[in-house]
């Protein structure tokens, strides 16, 4: 977050409070202030679709705030009525009247002349896995499969640690280049890819998923992505062509061990 920008906007809003603006002006200040925070207050810009949702909510709340109190309604409504009917505002009204089509024309011009972009697509975070996959002639029902070595964590901690270590070796030999040394999706090849690889540090990724899901993604990679929700634009190789099943389960143990997340457990009815 750009704390400096946010602080400046909030300070400006507090400062405006001392000027005792009218209710209408105050509502406008709030609206613009919130918009400015959302638009400029984040180091990584918030996508326009989310800003629209947030601004919709803020607009609705401001309307509710005004309409809840008859006095506020008058404080907002009266200046608008005065502006449209009183003679002293006529020159300004004419300016506004001319400004509206100008703004519309400008927005159309801006829309038509902006640089061309590749079409966007609604990418989903978690592709839906198939019910079952086959890896090296072994069938894995993904709904019920679990990491065969997970139980070692309690029953044989030393063997478990050895497997985590083995997984570490697999990771730093194969996955490091894209997913990065701290698993934030910032490996040395990452910025040649669009979108960049998944960050395992993100609480919405491996922390939400079962180990069998990771096994599917690692084993089948981009070629195994489902038709639904595509195009996936993933560069993930199908690691079943390079790694054994044991190695893939080991690297999954390491991913959770490194990030300190726990996998989602299999829930049975």
């Amino acid at each position, binding site marked *: 977050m750009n704390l400096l920008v946010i602080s400046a906007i909030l300070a400006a809003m507090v400062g405006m409070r001392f000027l005792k603006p009218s209710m209408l002006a105050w509502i406008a200040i709030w609206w613009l202030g919130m918009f400015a925070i959302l638009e400029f207050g*984040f180091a*990584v*810009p*918030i*996508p*326009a*679709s*989310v800003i629209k*949702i*947030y601004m919709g*909510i*803020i607009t*609705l*709340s401001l309307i*509710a*705030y005004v*309409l*809840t*109190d*008859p006095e506020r309604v008058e404080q907002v409504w009266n200046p608008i009525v005065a502006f449209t009917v009183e003679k002293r505002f006529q020159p300004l009204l004419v300016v506004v009247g001319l400004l509206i089509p100008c703004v519309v024309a400008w927005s159309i011009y801006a829309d038509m002349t902006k640089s061309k*972009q*590749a*079409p*966007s697509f*609604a*990418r*989903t*975070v*978690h*592709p*839906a*896995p*198939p*019910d079952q996959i086959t890896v090296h002639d072994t069938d894995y029902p*993904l*709904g019920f499969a679990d990491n065969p070595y997970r139980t070692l964590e309690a029953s044989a901690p030393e063997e478990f640690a050895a497997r985590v270590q083995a997984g570490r070796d697999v990771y730093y030999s194969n996955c490091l280049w894209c997913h990065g040394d701290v698993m934030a*999706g*910032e490996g040395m090849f*990452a910025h040649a890819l*669009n*979108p*960049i690889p*998944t*960050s395992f540090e*993100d*609480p*919405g990724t491996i*922390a*939400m*998923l079962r180990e069998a*899901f990771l096994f599917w993604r690692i084993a089948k990679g981009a070629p195994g992505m489902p038709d*639904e*929700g595509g195009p996936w634009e993933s560069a993930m190789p199908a690691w079943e062509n390079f790694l054994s099943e044991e190695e893939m389960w080991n690297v999954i143990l390491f991913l959770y061990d490194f990030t300190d997340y*726990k*996998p*989602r*457990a299999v*829930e*049975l*009815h």
Partner: protein
Amino acid sequence: MKRKLPPIPVLLGVLAMIAVIAAAFMFRFASYFDESLSYKSPTRVVTEQAETPRQQALAEQVEAERQAALERPYEEAEYRAFPRIGSRVAIWVVAQLHLLFAAFVLAVPIFAVTIEFIGYRTGEKRYDRLAYEFTKLLSVSFSFTAALGAGLTFMLIIFYPKFTNYLMSVFSPTFLPYVLLFFAEAGFMYSYYYGWGKFSPKVHLFLGVMLNVVGTCIMLIANAWLTFMSTPSGIAESGALISTWDAINNYTWMPINIHRVIANIAYGGSIAGAYAAYQFLKAKTDEERAHFDWMGYMGNFVAICGLLPLPFAGYWLASEIYAFSQTMGLTMMGGAFSWLFIIQAVLIGNLFLFANWYLWLGMGRIKGAERYRSFIWPMLVVITICFAVWATPRSILSTTEEIQAMGGSSHPVLGYLGVMSAKNTAVNILILTTFLSFVLYRRSGKIPTVSWAKLGNRIQFLIFLAAASTVIGYGIAGYFVDAKTRIGFSVPQVGSVLLALVLVTLIDSFLLRGAATTETNWGKIRPISQYILILLAVTFTWIMGLMGYVRSGLRQHWHVYGVIRDTSVDAYTPTLGYATTVVSVTVLIFFALIGFIFFLAGLSGKKSFVAEPTPEPRGGDGTLEAGDSPSPTAMQV
């Protein structure tokens, strides 16, 4: 008696019609005589014109097809197509309309009987009148439900005969009880409605309770059929039936039962509230306005009561779907259907905002409510923040540049708001705030007189604070634990909120005992509040349609998930835009129909038709003179 002639244009019109008909007959006769009297050669027989080779081939083809049809053995069709929109959309719309009416018909008796019981216990007639007002909406809705249900059944048999046959084979033992229960429901429904004031109160209440029991049983049976389609059990992999009871008691049967009962109450309350709003807006007297204002308030109260526990019931249902199939769970929450949950989140956030807004506007009719006005803006801020968190998407709709900037479809900061810990926290705080609004509304017209009033207020404040702290604390902790533990955190979060609801209500009931009351001017509320009630009903209906589609659409290309595959031309998931359009059109049709029901229900309170007496003739001799109108008759509405 001299009769007045019809106006000249009418006479001319009639004459023109007669002339056109006469001309048509004359033309037909003329052509007949022309054919029969025309010259026919006595020596040359007119032979039929020879068929062209194409006509001969077509005739042979028709004959061959007829022969083939005669020789072909009977085969049951797997699918039949509905014209233009396709079978799936046709079934979808009818099923959704049936469900919307059924939900209303099941919900209204629940709170009608409750309100009637309150009236019976307190002796206040207004409760009895209110319960009757609610029940008035039932009879036509019941007929619509039945008609749509029959339509749905026939359409399933016609368009999906093989699948329907399979479903009937699995659930054959449930169909006869269903029909019998339906008869019983009709009996209880109409005796409850028409017997109002005719039976003793206890007998009448018994009828109402039985209506609810029978209605709920019907819903339980129907729920078994539809949940089986999504989460089948009790059958072999081939689809062969092993146990009917297991087929009924499948993964999502009980979660759906609970979810639907609660959702029906919320939805029924909102529709009844919309009816009250409609009547309020067209009311002509203060008395009418006061009555329908109160009815709208009660409808909204019922809707909020249902809305508060609804997210938890929905959460249980979703977790059962995930438990049944990881694929389904991920398709729902992280995959293609997750976008619909963003719309759902926005709509649910709207529900909370509207419900609170209505309560705040309602404070305007209560003298003494001014002292709570300063609480409104902080509550609005909290609701806005929670609404924003609740509606934050995990997978964000973004342009290519935005995705590049974010490094994926998840924002590095907003990503933290799009996950379960944040959402659960937001929705629990929304519920607490809505409850606080209700408590303040209730307090507006009452001034506690008990000696421990201050202490009571402080204890209530501490309870709210403790509940909010628990919810936020577990919400933050949820980021640092495994998924199973995180899911488990929802229990103390919900528990603390529910406990706060119970404790604060309990303290309130003692605190306000013998409280001084201020005047409540029913009917003196700003009209915008009534539009909010209508918006609430529309939003509820829209959510039901949307989530109904999600629940059903999750099966994707399966009739019965993993067992009976959909091999029809409709075996694909429609685009989100198309799906939401179908849902929206269905909601529009529903409101057109429910508007008609509102109109019919409104008629029952009107004066009867009375023909006005014939006006005295001018001359006093019983004759009308030129220019006089015939005696008008008018419907007294």
